[in-house]
């Protein structure tokens, strides 16, 4: 087989694949942030904590109630999404007419509370979550061995991203959402309940974070700080993709995951900072992000 710049293809493909897996999480998380940002104009700082909560709820469902992975994949996002809707109704709504930075600060406070609560009850060490039996094992791709569960993550992320894109771009509910993003007053003058739409949107964005959390549970250890660092990377992803842009979140998420993987091959020292460097470059060249509307 060929070699590229002295790098064996196994390593190269392996890192690209790992990058795609990380990118799957980036994409689903930034998609949720983008949906929320689009309508509410706020950055949900608690997104990482809610991702962690999604993983923990899956773990709790399994440990206390014996509810398996497949059910948790649906139930956990519903529970966390419901909590999100309560948060929106009780805390974010009163701040709606104020500077949006207050909402950012509020969700930051929420992050501390949620993280603190789980640390208090479960400590900082991780909880193991088994890979569901059907998804264990590896396939031989010729150039590398691919764990089936990792492939499953990518497939699920692609499906969820596509479904979300479809929901927003091609359905009636999605047209309400896009219209309300543009001109909420006009939408309410048509008899549409915009506050309800806002609550549902926040709940949906949060549910996406929880879904990513459930997917992450079997590969990363479930622990209270698992969302802490990934979320900042995801913030950078949405700045690069263009805040509030659905396509920017999806393409940016997967793309930057791969870029990160490739950096691990060619210049490992920069692999954790490459996304932030790209962010700085994008900001200098196109401040509204690659897919963003002009600000």
């Amino acid at each position, binding site marked *: 087989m060929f070699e590229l710049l002295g790098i064996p293809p196994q390593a190269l493909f392996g890192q690209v694949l790992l990058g795609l897996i990380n990118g799957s999480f980036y994409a689903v998380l930034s998609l949720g942030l983008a949906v929320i940002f689009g309508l509410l104009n706020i950055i949900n700082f608690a997104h990482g904590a809610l991702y962690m909560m999604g993983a923990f709820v899956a773990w709790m469902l399994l440990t206390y109630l014996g509810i398996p992975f497949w059910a948790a994949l649906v139930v956990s996002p519903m529970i966390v999404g419901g909590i999100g809707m309560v948060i929106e109704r009780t805390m974010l709504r009163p701040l709606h007419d104020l500077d949006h930075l207050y909402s950012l600060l509020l969700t930051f406070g929420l992050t501390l509370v949620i993280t603190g609560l789980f640390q208090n009850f479960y400590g900082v060490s991780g909880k193991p979550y088994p890979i569901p039996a059907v998804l264990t094992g590896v396939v031989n791709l010729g150039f590398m061995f691919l764990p089936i569960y990792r492939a499953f993550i990518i497939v699920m992320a692609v499906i969820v991203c596509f479904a979300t894109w479809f929901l927003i771009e091609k359905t009636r509910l999605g047209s309400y959402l896009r219209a309300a993003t543009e001109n909420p007053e006009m*939408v309410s003058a048509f008899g549409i309940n915009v506050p309800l739409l806002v609550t549902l949107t926040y709940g949906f964005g949060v549910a996406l974070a929880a879904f990513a959390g459930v997917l992450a549970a079997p590969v990363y250890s479930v622990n209270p700080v698992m969302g802490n660092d990934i979320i900042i990377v995801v913030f950078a992803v949405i700045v690069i993709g263009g805040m509030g842009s659905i396509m920017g979140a999806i393409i940016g998420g997967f793309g930057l995951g791969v870029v990160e993987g490739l950096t691990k091959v060619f210049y490992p020292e920069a692999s954790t900072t490459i996304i932030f460097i790209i962010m700085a470059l994008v900001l200098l060249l196109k401040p509204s992000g690659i897919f963003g509307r002009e600000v």
Partner: protein
Amino acid sequence: MTHTIEHTGPGAPAAQSDTMLEVSGLNGWYGESHVLHDINLRVGSGEVVTLLGRNGAGKTTTLKAIMGLLKTRSGSIRFQGHEVIDTPARSIAKMGVGYVPDDRGIFGSLSVLENLLLPPKVAEGGFDLPDIYELFPNLQERLDSYGNKLSGGEQQMLSIARILRTGARFVLMDEPTEGLAPVIIHQIGHTVRRLKKAGFTILLVEQNFHFARELADRHYIVQEGRIIDEFRNDEVTENLDKIQGYLGI
């Protein structure tokens, strides 16, 4: 909560006794500034009534207040006998009030078809798509275009068309002729006349007096947030100087 509208049926004459909208003692504020002062007006079922006045007189604000879009308002707005002064816009819309705003309110990121289908039906008897395409043939050709790619005239037609679909029988129309070419104004005038014939009730804000004169049953003159005068359309000729004085034309 949906209110079905007892409409008078197509072609019903404007019965003075049958009140669609009654506004009394309406006051409105933008933040700290008091912009509407004791507005009183009445629109009978099937009537076309205009609010005439100069720029910044408070016409648009009056419409917004009726639609429930002005945050601070007081007084009384009765729609078909129901008090709606504290009712949110979305509930007023569901009672059968359609709103065609001065900026036309077209969503640039939605296609023409999506814009058209966006407002939910609030009552039976709305136009269906073939009716709308017959009324506005240009729109049918541009269904897939995005709202922000339309010309001003097309936007205006779309803004009216999407309200007709909903079954609303009372339409608040804010300066539908503003900035449009005479041929388009003519087409819009034709549309309004057809709606009137079909029994729609219309409260029209206009600066274009000639346009208003050809369509309306009655006119209110708005100045500095107050209604200062009122004319039936058949009184217009004898009061022409007075009206032109009010409007500064």
